[in-house]
C-alpha cells in the first residue's frame, strides 16, 4: 500500500485503509472500497487530503511474504541431508537470515 494525496487518487484504486471521521472516529468508508469519481468528490468535500491505496505491488508483496514464511518453515526439513556439509550449511544460514529479513521488511510496510 502507499499513502497518496487525494489530488493524485484515481477512480479504480482500492482503499488500503478505512476512512474514518477523525483519527479514532467511526468508519465512513471501508477498507477495500474501490474509488469512484463520486466518492473522490465526496472525500474532497470532506477535507480528506491523504488516503492509503493498495498498490499492484501490494498483491505481489503479499504473495512473496507468504512464500518467505513458508520457505522458512520448511528450511530445516529441506536441508536435513546436508548437516555435515559445511558449504551447504553456510548457504542455509545465509538463506535463513535472508528469509527472516524479508519477512520483517514485509511486516514493516
Amino acid at each position, binding site marked *: 500500500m502507499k499513502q497518496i494525496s487525494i489530488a493524485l487518487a484515481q477512480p479504480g484504486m482500492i482503499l488500503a485503509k478505512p476512512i474514518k471521521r477523525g483519527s479514532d472516529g467511526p468508519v465512513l468508508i471501508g477498507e477495500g472500497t474501490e474509488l469512484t469519481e463520486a466518492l473522490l468528490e465526496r472525500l474532497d468535500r470532506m477535507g480528506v487530503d491523504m488516503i492509503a491505496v493498495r498498490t499492484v505491488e501490494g498483491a*505481489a508483496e503479499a*504473495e*512473496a511474504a507468504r*512464500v*518467505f514464511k513458508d*520457505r522458512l518453515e*520448511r528450511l530445516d*526439513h*529441506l*536441508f*536435513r*541431508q*546436508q548437516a555435515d*556439509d559445511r*558449504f*551447504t550449511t*553456510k*548457504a542455509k544460514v*545465509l*538463506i535463513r537470515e*535472508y528469509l527472516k529479513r524479508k519477512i520483517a521488511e514485509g511486516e514493516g510496510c
Partner: protein
Amino acid sequence: MGTEEHKRSLLSIRDLPTLPSVLDEITRLVDDPDSSTEQIAHVITRDQALSAKVLKMVNSPIYGFPGRISSVHHALVLLGLNVIRGIIISTTVFEMMIQSMTGLWAHSLGCAMTCTTLAKTAGLKDPEEYAVAGLLHDIGKVVVAVQLPEQVERIEQTVAERDIPYLSAEKEVLGFGHDRINGWLADHWNLPLNLKEGITFHHAPAKAAHYPRMAAVAHLSNFFVHFFEYGESGYDAVPRLESKALELLGFTLADVEKILDKLVVEFDALEDVSFS
C-alpha cells in the same frame, strides 16, 4: 538383475522413447550448408501439434521474452536451433510420462526457468541455451520409468523407507544414477556436447571437462528448485551445494540473495502457466 543388465535394458533401442522424425530431418538440414532457417522452420511447422508446443514453451516465463513470439521461424532466429531441438526432445519424452510424472515435468520446467535466470545473472552468452539443460537434467529418471518400471518402485520404496536421496537409491537399486543415464541418452540422441555435459554432471559440475559452466548452471538450478519445492523430483530435500558451481559462474554466497529476489517473482509467474 545386475548393473550391466540394467544398463542394457535401459538402452534397448526397441523401447527407448523415439524422437520425432522431424529431428532427423532438422539434423540433415543443419548439416547442409545450403539450407536456411526458413527451411528448418518449415519442417517443424508441418507438425502442428509440435509447433504449438514449441511456441507455448518459448512464450513461457522460462525464456522471459517481453513480446510474443508468434512463429516457429521467429523462435528459431531468436533462440537458435539447439534450444528448439531441446524443447522438442524434452516435450516428446515427457509427453509419454505426463500422466504419472507431472511432478517431474514441473520440476524440470522450474529448473529450466532458473537456468535462464542464472545464466543471465552470470552474464553468460546465449542464456536460453542453458534452459535446455534444466529441461533435460532428469530425463534419465523418465527413461528408467519407461524401461524399468518395477525398479522405479524399488527406488521410490528405498527413498521412502530410509529417507535417502533419490540418486543414492538409484545407485543402490540400479548400480548407477540418472546422471549417468543422461550421458548414455545424450550419446544415443546425438545431443550437443555442452548439453551432454550439463545433464551428466549436474550433480558434480567440476567433473565436466569442456562445459563446466553449463553443468554449474544446471547444478545451482536444481538446488534452487528443490529449495522452492516447485514440482517433484522424487525427494524433498535440497542436494548438496557445490561451492565450485558458484565459483564457475563468478558468484559468491552473497549473490544467492539477489538470485532469490528474482526467483521469488519468477516462480510466482510460472505457477500461472499450464503446460499439460
